[in-house]
């Protein structure tokens, strides 16, 4: 191999490191066999660089490519288009290691590396991914440095790329703050991969699944004026489910139709003057449209709708971290009226299922004719009988509620909410299940509330005349700790909290320094989301407004243009471009050359190599009548140019002009 620069182990080392970091950053997306092919390619490259193996067989390479494409095509159905495309990119990235033959190939590899960085940015927007991106960019630049300047050592190249990144920081800040935020030109493909979070349907196992995840669901900052609700009041409503098929709860057809067809505005109820709780929610991407809010959230942004079942709903799925403001009026819940149709739906139970429970409810109802008394009786039943709150309940049969009520008696929120709602419906009280989150972790240092996936919760709402929809949480009767102190405390004895994830920091809330570390990371994440990802058009508008004193189109356009001009000049300056004023010597030179052009028109051409003295002689022989002027001019020019080491002055320039003029007049 003649291209010895490619054989350099440092270069290959840098490339390998870049590839591995990329894989690591995309480890959730990458298919195992794609990583395998990459490893084979890199392994071959290493062996080749030390001379252990021969050139890779071209046909074998094509075969691997075709096989890889076929495998990807198969996996499209399973993992979705986006993930497949990412894997296609990574497959090409890995196979490129075999094809490093020319310098161009290295550039291509770096380009793919940068593209991978872009993919990481599209997929993840959290702090940790951002931290992974920096070294990736640095490594890619270092590869370029080592390739273009082979004399550079790896350490020097890495240092240089760090410098380059450091230099680009101010530029980045200016672009981030001031460049107009354009809407995306195309939609990022929705990831089909299951992100942890609530879904449209709820079966008793779902919440238990969620409680294994310590991922952040959303963060909340309450407005300074608002009264901070108690922890046990923090029921973050997300979805209302009022159709039960004996196993699963799902949203009603009305709600689905509303989502698909109408999305017409639910009429705004008259807002009470007091009692509103205002807060800001920064939600992590859910790939869904529902949004969380405390009871009866009101939001007047155009891209957030109010659903008929008293929730809020985004006009498009939340694919990126999003910030929105909500004001909640708990008292409005009591003013909700329901139509007969809705009332009927909230009383419906599947015939023939859970007969034992229905019987039990009807009998109990006889002793408690008042709705309120009946509810209290059911709740105290849950409280007094041997019900256990556990994250690992036994499986239930076809009559799931019967099995639970009179058999296992072990379950968590979804079981209790489901059973409670069925009992209510059997007793003639309209009721439904609400899925969402309960509680959260209050950070008093910074003043925000973090709600994690393990805070996911399900509870019931019953409709009482004059009181409207009233929240009833049977879980609170079974395990008050869950509501008042959170899942971690409730599960302390069972030791099942986050039992799946050994490394989770949230698990070690009893170890002070680990907990501190976790809280600091949470703070960092919060600030990241709040100030970086949350910096949207609105905030930018405010900033511009403050800067410019009133935003007008002209001002924004001129600011944008001046930004571009500034950045362009700055880049030019850095690239070594400097505006240089012509010295008088240079001006006189160009005057002389212009004269040569003039004389060429009258037939006295100056050959390229002829200098002034010889040229003067040529002119003198061809144009004898102008001889004295030519000699005077040439003498002056030679004196200025060659005799004196002093720079020419303005008067010299004028003199030269005068001499040229008199010569031209003569001919």
């Amino acid at each position, binding site marked *: 191999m003649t291209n010895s620069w490619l054989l350099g182990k440092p270069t290959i080392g840098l490339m390998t490191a870049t590839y591995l970091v990329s894989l690591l950053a995309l480890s959730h997306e990458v298919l195992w066999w794609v990583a395998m092919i990459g490893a084979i390619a890199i392994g071959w490259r290493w062996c080749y660089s030390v001379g252990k193996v021969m050139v890779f067989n071209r046909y074998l390479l094509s075969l691997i490519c075709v096989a890889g494409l076929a495998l990807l095509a198969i996996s499209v159905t399973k993992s979705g288009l986006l993930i497949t495309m990412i894997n296609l990119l990574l497959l090409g990235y890995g196979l490129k290691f075999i094809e490093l033959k020319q310098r161009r190939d290295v550039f291509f590899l770096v380009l793919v590396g940068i593209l991978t960085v872009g993919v990481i940015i599209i997929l993840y927007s959290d702090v940790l991914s951002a931290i992974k991106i920096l070294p990736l960019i640095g490594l890619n630049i270092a590869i370029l440095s080592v390739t273009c300047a082979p004399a550079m050592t790896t350490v020097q190249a890495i240092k240089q790329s760090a410098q380059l990144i450091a230099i680009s920081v101010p530029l980045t800040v200016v672009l981030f703050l001031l460049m107009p935020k354009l809407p995306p030109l195309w939609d990022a493909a929705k990831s089909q991969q299951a992100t942890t979070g609530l879904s449209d349907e709820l079966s008793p196992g779902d919440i238990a699944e969620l409680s294994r995840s310590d991922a952040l669901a959303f963060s909340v900052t309450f407005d300074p004026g608002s009264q901070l609700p108690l922890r046990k009041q923090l029921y973050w409503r997300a979805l209302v489910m009022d159709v039960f098929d004996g196993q699963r709860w799902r949203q009603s057809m009305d709600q689905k139709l509303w989502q698909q067809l109408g999305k017409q505005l639910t009429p705004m109820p008259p807002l009470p003057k007091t009692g509103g709780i205002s807060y800001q929610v920064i939600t992590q991407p859910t790939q869904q449209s529902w949004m969380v809010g405390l009871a009866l959230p009101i939001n007047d942004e155009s891209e957030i709708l109010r659903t008929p079942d008293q929730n809020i709903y985004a006009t498009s799925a939340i694919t990126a971290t999003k910030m929105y403001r909500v004001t909640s009026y708990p008292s409005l819940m009591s003013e909700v009226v329901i139509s007969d149709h809705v009332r009927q739906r909230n009383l419906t139970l599947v015939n023939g299922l859970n007969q034992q429970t229905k019987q039990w409810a009807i009998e109990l109802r006889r002793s408690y004719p008042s709705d309120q008394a009946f509810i209290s009786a059911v709740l105290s039943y849950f409280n007094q009988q041997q019900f256990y709150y556990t994250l690992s309940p036994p499986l239930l049969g076809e009559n799931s509620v019967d099995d639970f009520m009179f058999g296992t008696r072990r379950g968590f929120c979804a079981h209790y909410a489901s059973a409670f709602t069925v009992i209510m419906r059997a007793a003639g009280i309209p009721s439904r299940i609400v899925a969402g989150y309960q509680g959260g972790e209050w950070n008093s240092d910074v003043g925000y509330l973090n709600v994690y996936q393990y805070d996911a919760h399900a509870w019931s709402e019953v409709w009482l005349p004059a009181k409207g929809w009233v929240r009833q949480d049977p879980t609170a009767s079974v395990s008050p700790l869950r509501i008042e102190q959170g899942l971690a405390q409730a599960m302390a004895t069972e030791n099942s909290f986050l039992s799946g994830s050994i490394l989770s920091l949230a698990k070690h809330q009893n170890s002070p320094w680990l907990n501190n570390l976790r809280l600091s990371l949470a703070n960092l994440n919060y600030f990241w989301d709040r100030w970086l990802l949350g910096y949207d058009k609105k905030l930018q508008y405010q900033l511009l407004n403050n800067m410019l004193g009133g935003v007008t189109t002209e001002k924004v356009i001129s600011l944008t243009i001046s930004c571009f001009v500034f950045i362009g000049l700055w880049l030019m300056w850095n690239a070594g471009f400097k505006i240089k004023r012509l010295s008088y*010597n240079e001006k006189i030179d160009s005057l*002389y*050359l212009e004269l040569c052009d003039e004389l060429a028109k009258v037939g006295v051409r100056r050959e390229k190599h002829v*200098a002034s*003295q010889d040229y003067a002689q040529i002119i003198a022989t061809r144009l004898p009548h102008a001889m004295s002027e030519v000699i005077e001019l040439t003498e002056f020019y030679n004196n200025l*140019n*060659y*005799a004196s*080491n002093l720079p020419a002055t303005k008067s010299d320039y004028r003199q030269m002009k005068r001499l040229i003029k008199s010569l031209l007049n003569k001919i």
Partner: protein
Amino acid sequence: MNPLIVPIVEQINKQLLGKEYQIKQALCCLLANGHLLIEDAPGVGKTTLSHALAISLGLSYNRIQFTSDMLPADLLGVSIFDNTSGQFVFHRGPIFSQLVLADEINRTSPKTQSALLEAMAERQISIDGETYKLSDPFFVIATQNPLDHSGTYELPDSQLDRFMMRVSLGFPSIDAEKRMLQGHSIGLDNLKQVINPEQLKELQLGASQVTASDPILNYLLALVQETRVNSKYPHPLSPRASQAILATAKAWAFIENRKYVLPEDIQAILSAVVEHRLRHTNQQGGQSLGEHLLHSVNPLG
């Protein structure tokens, strides 16, 4: 022309008719304190020119006819055992003079050539552990026949580089040759010393004090750079070559009685200074590499 130089040129010109330009070039080389190589066919006056220069400048000179059986000792000198003192005594060779006329340098073996060229570079010789300084001023004017003549040893690149200039005399014009045949040229015996070595030193000093302005240096560098970036030139010019160009251009300007260098001065000596460094002598189209170089760089602007 510089009044101090005029009589020298005139006298030599009387002997070597119609070769004023070459005479000035040769003088220019000596004023720049460089060694001179005269190359041409036999019988055009190489030796005559070198003799005339030596006599006119009043330098002590030795003429060495290089032959194929010559040894370095024949040139440098030899240590001989002296019976009376019982010691080896060094007998100085012909190189110990102010001007050495090395006739037909390419006839001798490379070994002897090397001995001469080493002495030229260092201006001293070492024999038997003793170092002997050569006289000051020390010039070598070497002549050589074109290389396609049989029985010659081509000078290697590194040694050609030691000569500041290579001058070709060429055949005289018909007029000049006729006058020569008519007996108008004066003989070697009629040559007189025009200046003494001290005056020569002053002239050298004067030549070195000629100023070269920035545009001149730029032009010089553009010329040198052209040979380095253009693949047409197989042997790019070295920094020593650019020093030689500058020194000789200054000397030429001094001969032209100017205190500063003009592009024309560089052009006047360029071919003589660079041709033997660029090596390629026979070019297609009749234009030598030196001429080609001169025509491809713009001295202005």
